[in-house]
């Protein structure tokens, strides 16, 4: 085996050019992630995929695999930090899982279960964020946005529309829409866009399909996110 790195001294093969995250996925090793999606350019902002490579903490989704790397990917300490970052994502927005249409299909919620997050832990910011229900076919609920920019990337790179962008900074960072009014209805957005179906949480949802599938029988209700093979 020419190209391999090690996890806990076990060799893991990779194809030159692959990221650590991709190589781990090929080898059936789960690395948690939220802002990463195999169809899009790596982003490296959520930091849930943080792993330790030769003693340094790095994002597995952006670092290229190379021979000689010694990895640590699953320790109580790393997982505690991942849990803390999930809690940060929860408290910076307004996430009320029981009433959310995305419950059971939500990657943030699923990761919360995966990392045994039983409370938000931190103080809640309860930001005053709006809902944009102007579009006939989709709704934007900024209360749930985690700033992963998957919709930004999908609209730009697949739909070639650049409907979404990121505005503000710090805790005021927010999803913005490319239209004269800032409303989705006045943009080039269509429900057939890739960007309409990429949100890992419930921030962009199609209208008129609420609760079609009962909560309890949904994707992550049936199996944990770490068993997922298609993302």
């Amino acid at each position, binding site marked *: 085996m020419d190209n391999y790195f090690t996890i806990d001294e076990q060799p893991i093969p990779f194809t030159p050019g692959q990221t650590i995250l991709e190589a781990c996925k090929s080898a059936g090793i789960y690395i948690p992630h939220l802002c990463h999606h195999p169809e899009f350019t*790596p982003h*490296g*902002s*959520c*930091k*849930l995929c*943080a792993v330790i490579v030769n003693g340094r*903490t790095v*994002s597995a989704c*952006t670092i290229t695999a190379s021979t000689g790397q010694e990895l640590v990917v699953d320790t109580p300490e790393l997982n505690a*930090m991942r849990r*803390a*970052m999930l809690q*940060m*994502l929860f*408290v*910076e927005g307004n996430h009320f899982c029981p009433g959310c249409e995305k419950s059971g299909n939500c990657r943030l919620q699923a990761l919360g279960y995966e990392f045994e997050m039983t409370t938000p832990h*931190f*103080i809640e*910011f309860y930001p005053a964020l709006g809902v944009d229900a102007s579009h006939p076919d989709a709704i934007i609920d900024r209360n749930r946005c985690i*700033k992963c920019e998957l919709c930004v990337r999908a609209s730009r790179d697949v739909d070639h529309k*650049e409907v*979404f*962008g*990121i*505005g*503000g*900074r*710090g*805790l*005021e*960072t927010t999803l*913005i*829409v*490319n*239209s*004269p*009014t*800032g409303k989705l209805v006045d943009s080039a957005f269509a429900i057939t866009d890739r960007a309409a179906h990429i949100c890992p949480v419930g921030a962009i949802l199609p209208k008129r399909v609420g609760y079609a599938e009962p909560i309890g029988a949904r994707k992550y209700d049936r199996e944990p996110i770490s068993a997922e093979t298609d993302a």
Partner: protein
Amino acid sequence: MRSDNPVADAVQRYNSDPLCLVQIVRETQAALGWLSRETQGEIAERLKIPVNRVESVVTFYAFFFDKPRGAYRLLLSDNVTDRMQGNQALLTRLLGRFGVKRGEASADGLVSVDLTSCTGMCDQGPAMLVNTIAVPRLSEARIDAIADLIEARTPLDHWPAEFFRVEDNVRRAGPLLQAPMTPGSALDAAIAIGREGLLNEIKRSNLRGRGGAGFATGLKWEAARNAPGAERYIVCNADEGEPGAFKDRVLLTSHAGRIFEGMAIAAYAIGATRGFLYLRGEYEYLKPRLDAEIERMRLVRRLGPAVRGCAGFDFDVEIHVGAGAYVCGEETALLESLAGKPGRPRVRPPYPVTHGYLGRPTVVNNVETLCQATEVAIHGGAAFAGQGTKNSTGSKLLSVSGDCERPGVYEYSFGVPIAQVLEDAGAAPDAAAVQVGGPSGVLMTPDQFTRRIAFEDVPTSGSFMIFSGQRDMFEVARNFVHFFAHESCGFCTPCRVGTSLQREMVEKIAEGRGTRYEINELMRVRGLMRRMSHCGLGQMAGNAISDCWSKFRPTFERRLLAMEFAPAMDLDAALAPARVVAGRDDAGAHLKEEV
């Protein structure tokens, strides 16, 4: 040609180039005072870009306003040194005089007043910016005079020149500052030894980047020269945003020719034809002088085609002005800003030497580094390496402020002990602490004053703030915590949320409602940010509070409740709206304090 359309003018001045979006937005706002949705839409339309790109820039930079502000926009510098010099009383005075709330325009649209991060006038504060122009040495009398001028609607160019006079305050000069460089001498020396020769001298000098990280300049130049690509760039990082730092401002004021010559020799070494000087928005008042210097240098062929008559050595420089974003001091954030985007640091690697401006090989050097490079060109690498210490060669400029008699810029050979700087600056005899390297740096206490300024001991970009024993160090740390929460770019989870969590916890302690739990949480969040953050800002953002806790515990402890935990929510305060509705404020409408 000026039309009556400021947007059209600004777009035209930058050749309708979206890469210059930050500059176009800045100049549009200078003309209109703020940036309405319609204005943003017109900029987008004229540049043929989506309007959300304009919005993302407008909402990212602190100096751009998407809500109406006054015709006179006052931003008081809020570094801890400004606070020590009394900026809070001046803020209250201004708000009272105009009857406005912080950040809101007065009813007549005349004036708005707000705070901003350190404006780099710590040796002559408190300071403010009036429509981006610096006004140092504020006092009650000066504030009142300024308020009179504003009420009389006096244009800025009719205000007393004294109000805008910024001092260099060079207190100790070394090789760099003691004598002005003969213009052209660094270029002539470089051309005489050739591109390879120059690179070898820079490597021999062991010159390291003065921005703080200390990367070897010779290796950086060589990597950019060797990187594949038809075009290369030199970028001068003049985004001196670290609170307490102002030495680059002095170089930009009085040694601009030397900076540009430093850029030119760097360009010569790596084969670049275009250079940018990225000037922090707080120093915009220097832009006319810098532009004039560039023009002068073109006339005598120290810039432009065939520099010094040397065939094949074409190099020119342009100024880009930032707009209030500390994170742009990080070199990849700076490159994003230079390309007309919000300053969010990129994923590294690749590094700018191979993938910089427009993804092409780029050298980003600090102002002081480029000035030191001219020293190396003129005197040779060996002479330069003879000063300072083995691992930290040459001299270093320090920006000294805080509790001392002689604040200003000090040039020392590397290796100078902190105690020496304190003595030279006339520091308060009871100096209890020095924050070296700004809020991202380290807090040094008297037992550490024998430590030396050097990359191998106490590295610093140059900020050196002194605090006497009378200062409340908790307030110092509190100011730094607010700074980071305000300046986090918002890209990565740990810094975006962590810096604001720190702010909330420090405020709880400041209110006297903190417990041991908050302290432990602050340290845990600090550890998380240090390990997980995307760039240096987040990695360092917990240092100040952590240092302060470990070295000045009593200042925290006297604020803490003598219990392990108190809820973040103040239930009685939360009932205030209910009391208003009920029209009651008697004892029965308040919760009893349970002890």
